């Protein structure tokens, strides 16, 4: 009888161990790696850079605390300011005019549920950055919102507010690459070693 009880206990513990392994979340490597290729990596980043510096991306990543507007990236009218949380100040909050979707018509407010700038404590400036500066900034968790490389790819490829750039509403030009092509270049940049361009790269 004692033997039977001991065997039962061993079987139960064994099953529990097997089950615990089976239910453990599979670790997925979301950043595929390729052989290091500094030339290919930098080339991919230059394509990424051209998208990030287009008006649709850069207008919400200004060097100052005023968002930019239009294909000419002029300062947002109405003295709109970033505010601490990136969503404006007082009676000039982003969502006071910007709806959850684009308002139809030329010169009407574009929209997205997350509309806003990066917050004041993580400004993520694109405007004025050289390719090298922007690449290093994007890779630095202290400057990129605490993102790993995998999260950086996910943000570029899947974030809804980033995606607005390809559905910007009437009268606004699109970034120079499609979003899938952009995401592919981001992945290639990272996978080939996440190299930053040289200081003289344009």
């Amino acid at each position, binding site marked *: 009888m004692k033997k039977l009880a001991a065997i039962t206990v061993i079987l139960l513990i064994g099953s529990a161990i097997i089950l615990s392994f089976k239910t453990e979340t599979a670790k997925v490597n979301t950043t595929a790696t390729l052989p290091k290729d500094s030339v290919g990596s930098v080339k991919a980043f230059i394509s990424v850079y051209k998208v990030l510096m287009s008006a649709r991306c850069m207008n919400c990543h200004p060097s100052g605390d005023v968002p930019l507007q239009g294909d000419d990236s002029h300062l947002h009218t*109405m003295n709109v300011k970033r505010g601490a949380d990136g969503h404006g100040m*007082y*009676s000039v909050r982003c*969502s006071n*005019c910007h*709806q959850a979707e684009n308002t139809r018509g030329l010169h*009407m407010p574009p929209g997205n549920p997350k509309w806003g700038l990066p917050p004041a404590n993580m400004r993520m400036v694109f405007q004025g950055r050289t390719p090298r500066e922007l690449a290093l900034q994007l890779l630095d968790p202290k400057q990129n919102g605490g993102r790993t490389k995998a999260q950086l790819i996910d943000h570029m490829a899947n974030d809804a507010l980033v995606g607005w750039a390809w559905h910007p509403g009437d009268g606004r030009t699109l970034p120079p690459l499609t979003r899938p092509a952009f995401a592919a270049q981001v992945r290639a940049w990272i996978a080939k070693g996440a190299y930053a361009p040289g200081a003289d790269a344009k």
Partner: protein
Amino acid sequence: MITLNVNGQRHNVDADPNMPLLWAIRDILGLTGTKYGCGAAQCGACTVHLNGEAVRSCVTKVSRAAGQQIVTIEGLSVANDHPLQLAWNELNVPQCGYCQSGQLMSAAVLLRENPNPTDQDIDDAMSGNICRCGTYQRVRAAIHKAAAMQREGAKI
């Protein structure tokens, strides 16, 4: 039917969900203190409070406002005695008056969030409200006055 809670009163309105909130406020509910200016969120004349935020009702769809708390100029105070209204009156702020309800609604958000605003704070809060008569200096003076009244215990 869409339910709109305006100035503490519940209204069931038969409106297209895409109708601008401003139209529902003015044309269906008859609250004409809120004005139509540009129709493009450029001027601030149509500003109302949606859950306490100073939204531009000309571009805010009725569907966004459904079931939320809306306050128009008619509901800013019970007896037109919000410190801003008292200060506006005392300093004769309006000229033609068309933009003034929007100015007041924006200023009310500022004073709620910052009871002692500087000139810069006022500029930051009020630059989205355009006044073709150019009453900006009186608007600024009245906000300072209302802030002082508020500190002295006037009703808000």
